[in-house]
C-alpha cells in the first residue's frame, strides 16, 4: 500500500496476555472504512514490541485494546517506552477496553490522548480518531517545516 501524505496511520495493538479481540477487530474495520491505514498486531504484544512496530510503521496513533483489567500498568509501560524512544511527541496513544470511569480519568492524566471505555459508540471512536489524527498530521508538518 502506498502511504498517502495526508492519510492517518493507526496501529491497533493487543498488549498483555488478554485474548479478547472482538473490539480491536471491529474498531480496526471501522477506522479502515473511515479512510485510515490500520495495522493490527495480533494478540499478546509486549509494550516494547508495540512501540517498535509503531515506529517501524510510522503511525500517528497507537491504539491499545485491553480487557483484562491490567490497563493501568500496561498503558504506563507503553507511554514510558515511547518516551524512551523519543517518539512521544509524534505519536498519540489511545486506550480502549473495560476501564471504569475512575480509571478513564487516571489514564488521561497519565498521558493517553483519548480513552474509549465499554459502551463507546464506534462512530465516536472514528470521529475522535479522525480529529486526533489530523492534529498529529499537522504537528508533524509543523515540526518538519524549515521555518
Amino acid at each position, binding site marked *: 500500500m502506498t502511504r498517502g501524505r495526508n492519510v492517518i496511520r493507526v496501529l491497533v495493538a493487543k498488549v*498483555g*496476555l*488478554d*485474548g*479478547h*479481540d*472482538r473490539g480491536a*477487530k*471491529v474498531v*480496526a*474495520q*471501522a477506522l*479502515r472504512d473511515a479512510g485510515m491505514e*490500520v495495522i*493490527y498486531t*495480533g*494478540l*499478546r504484544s*509486549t509494550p516494547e514490541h508495540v512501540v517498535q512496530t509503531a515506529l517501524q510503521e510510522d503511525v500517528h496513533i497507537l491504539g491499545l485494546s485491553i480487557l*483484562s*483489567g*491490567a490497563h493501568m*500498568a*500496561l498503558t504506563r509501560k507503553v507511554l514510558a517506552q515511547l518516551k524512551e524512544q523519543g517518539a512521544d511527541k509524534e505519536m498519540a496513544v489511545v486506550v480502549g477496553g*473495560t476501564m*471504569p*470511569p*475512575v*480509571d478513564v480519568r487516571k489514564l488521561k492524566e497519565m498521558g493517553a490522548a483519548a480513552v474509549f*471505555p*465499554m*459502551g463507546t*459508540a*464506534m*462512530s465516536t471512536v472514528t470521529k475522535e480518531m479522525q480529529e486526533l489524527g489530523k492534529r498529529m498530521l499537522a504537528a508533524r508538518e509543523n515540526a518538519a517545516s524549515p521555518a
Partner: protein
Amino acid sequence: MSTTGKPKGATSSSGIPIKPIYTPEDVKGPHQERIGEPGKYPYTRSLHPTPYSQRLWTFRQYSGLAAAEDTNQRYKFLLSQGQTGLSVAMDLPSQIGYDSDDPLAEDEVGRVGVAISSLKDMELIFDGISLADVSTSFTINGTAAATLAMYFAVAEKQGVPLAKVRGTIQNDILKEYVARGTWIFPPEPSLRLIADSIEYCARHAPKFNSISIAGAHFHDAGASTVQELAFTLADGITYVDWTRRRGIPVDEFAPQLSFFFYTHNDFFEEIAKYRAGRRLWAKIMKERFGAKDPRSWMFRAGVVCGGSMLTAQQPHNNIVRVAYQAMASVLGGVQSVFTAAWDEAYTIPSEETAELALRTQQVLAYETGVANVVDPLGGSYYVESLTDAVEREAAKLIEDIDARGGMVPCIEKGYIQSLIARRAYEEQRKIESGEKVIVGVNKFAREETPPEIASYDVPEDAKRRHLERLNRVRKERDQAKAKAALAALERAARGAENTMPYLMDAVKAYCTMGEIYGTLRGVFGTFKEPVMQL
C-alpha cells in the same frame, strides 16, 4: 404487536426469515420421527424423559479471584448459598502456562481469575471442600492437561477415588485460536494433548467430562447463533476424529464429551439452537461415527447467560436480559446454567451482585413452574419450524467446513476468524444505525453518569501471599524428583506415549505451571497467528 408496519420482513438474529404466524403447514412431513420422544434418539425434545423438577439443572457460577485462599472463601460462600457446582476462573498467566513471577505475568496475576502456579494452590482452593461431594468445571484450555492433573492429584490426596470425581474440563483449544486467545502450541500438538486427556479420563475418571466443546466464545466474539452451533459441532467432529485415530472405539470416550454455549438475546432462536444441537450431534455420532451407546449420542450442554450481551449503559437492565436468557436456556433443555452478574461489563462481581445472579436462576427454578414439564415448547409450530431451520443452516456450514478440509485448516488460514470478525462489525453497524435495538443503548437511552461501581483490584496481600507460596514450593520440594519428572515429561512429549501419567507425576512433584509448559514449549514450539484479512 407493533402497529408501525416494518418495510422489511423480520429475521432471527442469524438471518433466518421469520413469519408473523406459524401453522401446521410449517411442520409438515415426517414430523414425529424428527422430533421423537424426550429421552430418546435423536433427543430433539430432551436428553431425559423426566422434567427438571426431578433433577434440576446445575447452578454453576463462574468464579475465581486473587490467590487460592480468596477463591476458597468465595466457593464456600457460594456453596452455602445453594450453588450446586463449582466453576473455576483462572488468571491469564495460569491459562497460558507462565508462573506468576514471570515478567510477562506481573500485571495479570490473580486478575481475571485465581492464580494457580502449582499443586499447592489447587490444594488450597479445595481446602475443606470434598471432591467426592462437588462437581467442578474448569474454564481452561491452553494448560488444561496440567490443570486436570492437579485436580486429580488433589482428589488422590483427599482419598477420593478418581472413579468418583465429577466435573468438566473445557480443554477445547480450537476455539481459542479463533476467539479468547489462550493458545500456546500449534494445533497438532495441542490436539494430541487433548486426545491424551480424553483417553486418560475414559480409562480412569469415567464420571469426568474430558472436554467441553465450546461455542460460547465464537458467539461472544460475534458469530451468529447458527455459526456458533456449526463451528462447535465441527470442532467436536475434529476431537472425535483425533481420539479415534489412536484406536480407541468411539463409545469408550464419547459419553464424556460435553458442550458449552452462550445464550444471547434472541429468545426462540436460542431455544431452537439447543433443540437442533441435540438432534444434529446425535445424528453425527450415530451416522458419521457409528456410535452405538446412547450416551455417546447425547449433546450435554452447559451455558452462560450474559457475556457480550451485557451493556455498560443502564447496567441494571442486564439483570432482566440475563433472566430471559436463563429462561430460554432452560426451555431449550440445557444441563447447567451460569447467570452473570449485572456489573460484569465493568468489573469482577462483588459478593452481593454474584448472589443476585444466583438468585435469578433460583427464582426461575422454584417459582415460575418451568421445571414441571419436559420440553414445554415441543410441538409449537414456530419452535419446531425454527429448530428445523437452525439445524438445516448449521448442517450447511458444517458441510462447507468439511469441504475445506475441516476446522484445523479453516483456522490456520484464518477463515473462521474473518467470518466472525466481519459479522461482529456488521452487528455493531446495525446497532449504531438503530436497525438492531438495544434498550438503554440506542433506544430509550438517556444522558447518564456512569455508575460508581468499585473497580476490582487484586489485593496486594493476596498477590504477596501467592508469590511467597510459589517461592516456598520451589525451595522446599524434592528437587531431584521434580527434575526427573520434567525430564520424563519431555521424553514422553517427544515420543508418542500418553503424556497424562507424566503430567500427574510432574504436578505431584510440585513442578510449576511455568516449568511444565516451558518444557512442553521446548518440544512443541508455539502457535503463530495467521494474518487477519479484515
